[in-house]
Each structure stands twice: as structure tokens, then as C-alpha cells.
């Protein structure tokens, strides 16, 4: 068995009203920032999976992303494969 580290990025589906994204976008003027649009606010979940292969680990992540971490009616998700080094890096940053 090996361990694999992933990040699941959950964002509101296109067309779903995202008032948080809108509020962020609305605040950009106060910073003097122009030319930024389509701000969508979601959430990122990092996790470690123990499995025989990366494909096996991905299958587990896919299931928990679709059944728990996202609501398919309103949200989509993408999965990033993180290398051990990058997850250690993010741990060192925090």
C-alpha cells in the first residue's frame, strides 16, 4: 500500500448564483484593481488516501468528492494530485 495526497476543488456550477463571488468582485474597485471578472468562490479540501495504486486512490477521492464534498445539483469539482513534496511544502507554509 502507498499513500497519495490529493486536493479537491469544489466550485459553484456555471449559472449558479454565487453571491460570495459577486461580493469579492464588487470589492475590487476599492483596491483600485480593474479588469477582473467571473469571480467564483469555492472550497479546497486536501486529503491523504492509502491505496494499492494511484488509480485506486483516485476512485476513492472521486466517490467522496461526488457524494460528500460537493452537491452535484449546484457544484462541480476537480481533483489535483499533489506530490508528497508539494503537500509538505503547503504544510511548511501553514
Amino acid at each position, binding site marked *: 500500500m502507498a499513500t497519495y495526497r490529493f486536493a479537491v476543488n469544489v466550485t459553484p456550477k456555471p449559472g449558479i*448564483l454565487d*453571491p*460570495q463571488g459577486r461580493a469579492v468582485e464588487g470589492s475590487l474597485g476599492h483596491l483600485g484593481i480593474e479588469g477582473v471578472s467571473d469571480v467564483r468562490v469555492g472550497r479546497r479540501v486536501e486529503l491523504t488516501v492509502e491505496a494499492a495504486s494511484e488509480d485506486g486512490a483516485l476512485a476513492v477521492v472521486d466517490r467522496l468528492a461526488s457524494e460528500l464534498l460537493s452537491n452535484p445539483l449546484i457544484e462541480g469539482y476537480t481533483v489535483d494530485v499533489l506530490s508528497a513534496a508539494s503537500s509538505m511544502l503547503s504544510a511548511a507554509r501553514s
Partner: protein
Amino acid sequence: MTVRVGVVIFPGSNRDIDAVNAIEIAGAEPVRLWHEQASLESVAAVIVPGGFAYGDYLRAGVIARFSPIMRSVAAFAADGGLVFGICNGFQVLAEAGLVPGALLRNRGLRFVCRQIAIAPERLDSPFTHLVGERRPLRMPVAHGEGCYFADPETLDALEREGQVLFRYVHDDATPAAPGDPGNPNGSLRAIAGVSNRTGNVAGLMPHPETASEAILGSDDGLLIIRSLVESAAARAAGVRATDRQLVVAAR
């Protein structure tokens, strides 16, 4: 025999006491159902009350959905049992797929806690048949994620199948569109409550259980709780009659 109505309690539920109180006022016996138990203790109906189940972590209602009691509630619902989710309870039922749609962050991004007005779309449901002519019904909302959402095809289907149970309304009982002051959260088509296709499971964002005594500012909500209790009693009696027939048949 007094009809027994269950009230599910999750860590973070906070309107369970109001639900218990309203059930008692409506003449039924409340039965508290802890989230870790699987038994529904032979109740004739289940209320999933308001609050912040499991802290509303991840998404409102999603963690609660996977609790042992909710698996039993889902089986009870599939068997035709009456299930009523209020506020956070509505969010739990929506996450569990027991009622259609989803509850998004309020359009104004703020937690809204105030008295609002709703009107029933139909009076032939187990949750509304005793509402009568009173319009609008006044009761409080208290939520941060109450903006009802479903895609346009689903919304059309809900209207067609009579699954829209309640809408937010103006004082003259006309629907309050998203953006109108009468619509507290931006709900599409002013939808405040929906039912499943078979009509035995319903969710409602406002709090009828909290508006169950005149001293609380309104007793309009009691009409809904009474409807549920009476429907539960009728169903329990029906089930008992069926049991008797089976016993007679077995002889």
C-alpha cells in the same frame, strides 16, 4: 390513542424544543430521536427540526444526511411515512435527496432572522389540509442558506406536479419574487417549501413550529403542525386497520 410524532435531534439542533412544544399543542405525543439511533420508535411521522446540525460544516445538512437516524428516516419516507423538514431540517432532506432542489447561501449574504409571510399553494397535502382560508401565514425565518434553487426544468416539473407547497408572499398574498422585500433569501419562484413527488415528504424554510402560540406573535404555523399531526393519525389508523385485516385474513 395519542399519535406519536418523532423529532430528530442532531448535535447542533436548536429548534427541537420548539418542535416538541408545537407537537404537544397540536395534541400529539412528541418522541425525541437521537441522531445515533436507528430506531424510529414506531412514530407515525417525523419532524427534522431547525438548527445547525453538525455545525453546518462543509454544507448545511450534508453531514447529518449520513447519520444512522437519517438512514431510517429515508427508509420510512420510501415506505410512505410522513417526514417534515423545517429550516435546517429542509436542508438535511434536500442534501439527502428526499426533497428536490438545494438551499443556497442567501442572495444578500446575510443571516436573515425576521417575521415573513407565506401562502400555501395547495390545501390537499398532508401538511396543509387544515390551513383553511387564512392568508398570508406569518412566521419567522432564521437562516443563512435558504435560497431555494433547482434548474429551470426541475422548477417547471415541480409546478406541474404540484410539488410547490409554499411561496413567500407580499401582504396581499401574491408571490414575492427574488429581490422583493417579501422574499428573504432570493428563492427562485418565491419557493419557501416543496414536497417530494409522492407528497409524503416536505421541507419548509420558515418556522411554523415557532409560530404556534398567539403569545409568540403568531399561531399561523400551528395550522401546518396540526395538518401534519392529523395526517399522521389518519395514516397510523389506516396502518392499524390493515394490520387487523391481515390478522382476520390469517385466521
